[in-house]
């Protein structure tokens, strides 16, 4: 592994998690060891001292019963029985003359000056002296006897040290395994915990490289990282939906523009071919301009519909007075209606307001009225009615026109659909699609009921508060 990748590894969360985990783990193990070591040390010392004290009391009793001779005999007996002597024993008179002194041979020499200086008291007095070599120590207790002499019994700490050093050796041999276990567990924990994050990173990477349909694998654990994955997937689904919608809209627009473009091209081509007729050329040019205008209107309307449907249409929401809105629309068509001898009536309360995009809503109402005027024969009636209905505003455009056949009703909302009977009229076949898209973008609904030959009724329901705007 190169230095650079090591450096990078040092900055990963996984590395830091492992380090922390194994650090804490090892610290715990060390504390545990220290505690048990201290416990072992103190319990060994306690046992040693108990043995020493017991020996001291036995010898003191002997001295009491049979004097110095009894003690010497007992010690000789012990030596003969055990072949090695476990204890250091010294018996001195009140003038500090040593009468009995036994130092087990294998112990080597000890600095006994401090032992000799110990005062003869009725209490037990402890002292530790170091050996001349070997690092071993002698633990001695002294007791003043009744006649003023001093009895001292001691024991080397070598046994105890031996046990403790064995304990340390065992620990030392185990600590490596403990470190490995700590690091291993830490790494495993980090690896396991960070798996959802790695999945997330992989998903983002594969999306960056163009695989839009890849998703974060779920583990159904319901924890925070799982929730993050779920939210991330939901976001991706929404983005994919929007892209799909845009792509679809683009395909439709491209398809719908081909027909008028073909007409323009054809007209221009024929005009170019007929060189002898300047009047014909002018006609062809006028056709081209009219067709271009139509194309432009169509393009704009298609874009509006697509944007409204995919939720990307910018709605400038403001309070809109429905009565004024209807008046505007009726006013726009006043002359047309008069020419056709249509009676257009409107009734709406003056205080009916909705939160909407005024420009878009005008377009919606104008489109509905436009249809009503187009498909209602001379002498017919058109009624524009609006009223409150709880938190909604209802807007109705009703005519006494030709009506819509039942099987055609679901199709009238489709883009560029034109019923057989509407083909004779000027139009793009986009009006009702736009109405529906814009009304839905405002959070409203639009419905139609119709009796062929008797008339149609378009009912528009808008929430009076804001629709969703994006």
């Amino acid at each position, binding site marked *: 592994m190169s230095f650079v990748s090591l450096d990078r590894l040092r900055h990963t969360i996984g590395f830091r998690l492992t380090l922390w985990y194994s650090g804490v783990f090892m610290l715990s193990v060390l504390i545990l060891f220290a505690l048990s070591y201290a416990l072992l040390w103190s319990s060994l010392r306690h046992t040693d001292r108990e043995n020493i004290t017991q020996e001291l009391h036995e010898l003191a009793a002997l001295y009491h019963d049979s004097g110095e001779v009894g003690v010497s005999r007992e010690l000789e007996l012990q030596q003969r029985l055990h072949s090695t002597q476990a204890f250091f024993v010294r018996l001195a008179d009140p003038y500090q003359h040593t009468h009995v002194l036994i130092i087990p041979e294998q112990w080597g020499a000890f600095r006994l000056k401090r032992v000799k200086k110990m005062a003869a008291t009725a209490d037990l007095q402890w002292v530790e002296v170091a050996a001349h070599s070997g690092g071993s120590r002698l633990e001695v207790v002294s007791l003043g006897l009744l006649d003023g002499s001093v009895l001292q019994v001691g024991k080397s700490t070598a046994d105890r040290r031996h046990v403790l050093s064995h304990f340390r050796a065992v620990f030392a041999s185990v600590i490596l395994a403990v470190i490995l276990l700590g690091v291993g567990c830490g790494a495993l924990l980090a690896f396991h915990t960070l798996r959802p994050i790695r999945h997330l990173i992989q998903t983002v990477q594969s999306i960056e490289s163009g695989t839009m349909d890849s998703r974060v694998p779920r583990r159904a654990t319901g924890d925070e990282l799982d929730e993050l994955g779920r939210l991330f997937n939901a976001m991706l689904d929404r983005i994919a939906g929007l892209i799909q919608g845009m792509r679809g809209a683009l395909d439709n627009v491209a398809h719908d523009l081909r027909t008028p473009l073909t007409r323009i091209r054809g007209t221009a081509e024929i005009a170019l071919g007929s060189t002898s007729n300047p009047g014909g050329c*002018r*006609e062809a*040019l*006028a*056709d*081209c*301009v*009219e067709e*271009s*205008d139509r194309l*432009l*209107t169509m393009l*704009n309307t298609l874009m509006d519909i697509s944007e409204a449907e995919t939720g990307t249409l*910018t709605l*400038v929401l403001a309070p809109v007075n429905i009565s004024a809105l209807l008046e*505007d629309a009726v*006013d*726009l*068509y*006043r*002359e*047309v209606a008069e*020419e056709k001898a249509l009676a257009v009536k409107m009734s709406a309360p003056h205080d009916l307001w909705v939160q909407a995009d005024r*420009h878009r809503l*005008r*377009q919606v109402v*104008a*489109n509905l009225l*436009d249809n009503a*005027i*187009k498909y209602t024969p001379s002498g017919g009636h058109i009624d524009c009615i609006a009223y409150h209905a709880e938190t909604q505003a209802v807007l109705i455009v009703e005519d006494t026109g030709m009506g819509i056949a039942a099987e055609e009703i679901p199709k009238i909302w489709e883009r560029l659909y034109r019923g057989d009977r509407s083909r004779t*009229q*000027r*139009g*793009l076949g986009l*009006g009702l699609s736009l109405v529906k898209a814009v009304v839905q973008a405002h959070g409203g609904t639009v419905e139609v009921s119709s009796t062929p030959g008797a008339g149609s009724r378009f009912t528009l329901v808008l929430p009076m508060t804001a629709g969703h705007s994006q």
Partner: protein
Amino acid sequence: MRLLLVEDDGKIASFILKGLQQAGFAVDQAETGEDGLHLALTQPYDAAIIDLMLPGVDGLSLIEEIRRRLIKTPVMILSAKRSVDDRVKGLHTGSDDYLTKPFAFAELLARIQALIRRSSGAAEPNSLVVGELVMDLLARKVTRAERPIELQAREFSLLEYLMRHAGHVVSKTMILEHIWDYRFDPQTNVVDVLVCRVRSKVDREFAVKMIHTIRGMGYVLRVS
């Protein structure tokens, strides 16, 4: 009248140039923002037409710079973006009008004339006269060859609009926007119907027709 046109698309520039020259304007054209800025800073213009998408310095920055140098020439923005936001942004920058591509040349011309009229601060006339047609704007009365013509309010507005642009073509979109304040095209020909009514009142009793339909372009009111 001298105009500055900053437009990088050769074909669009050439048709605007030809049209404006035919309408009697002297036009200087620049293809980049830098050239446009240079011309705007060194020459006096009555109005400028500036495209937003330009190589180098873009239209908005150009307008900002012109306004920063305290040059008051009225500016019209041309743009292929039709969203309301862009329109508002353009007007905030210091431009005076905004026209979306594609547009009818008649509309461009009418708007430029309106811009120049506004900035020159010419006094509002009390009456309009086109040949034998006379409109009294205060009394709201119209006569043709001394004979009074009765018009309804909206018919009056339309005739006034045509008379103000006498000799120039006025498109349907312009009429819709001016008379009804509608910015989209209703499928039924509301404009045709209104023009028909006005025409019948203005021209019916006279041999010489004044209101003409130019197919594909719009309507024009002219003498002869």
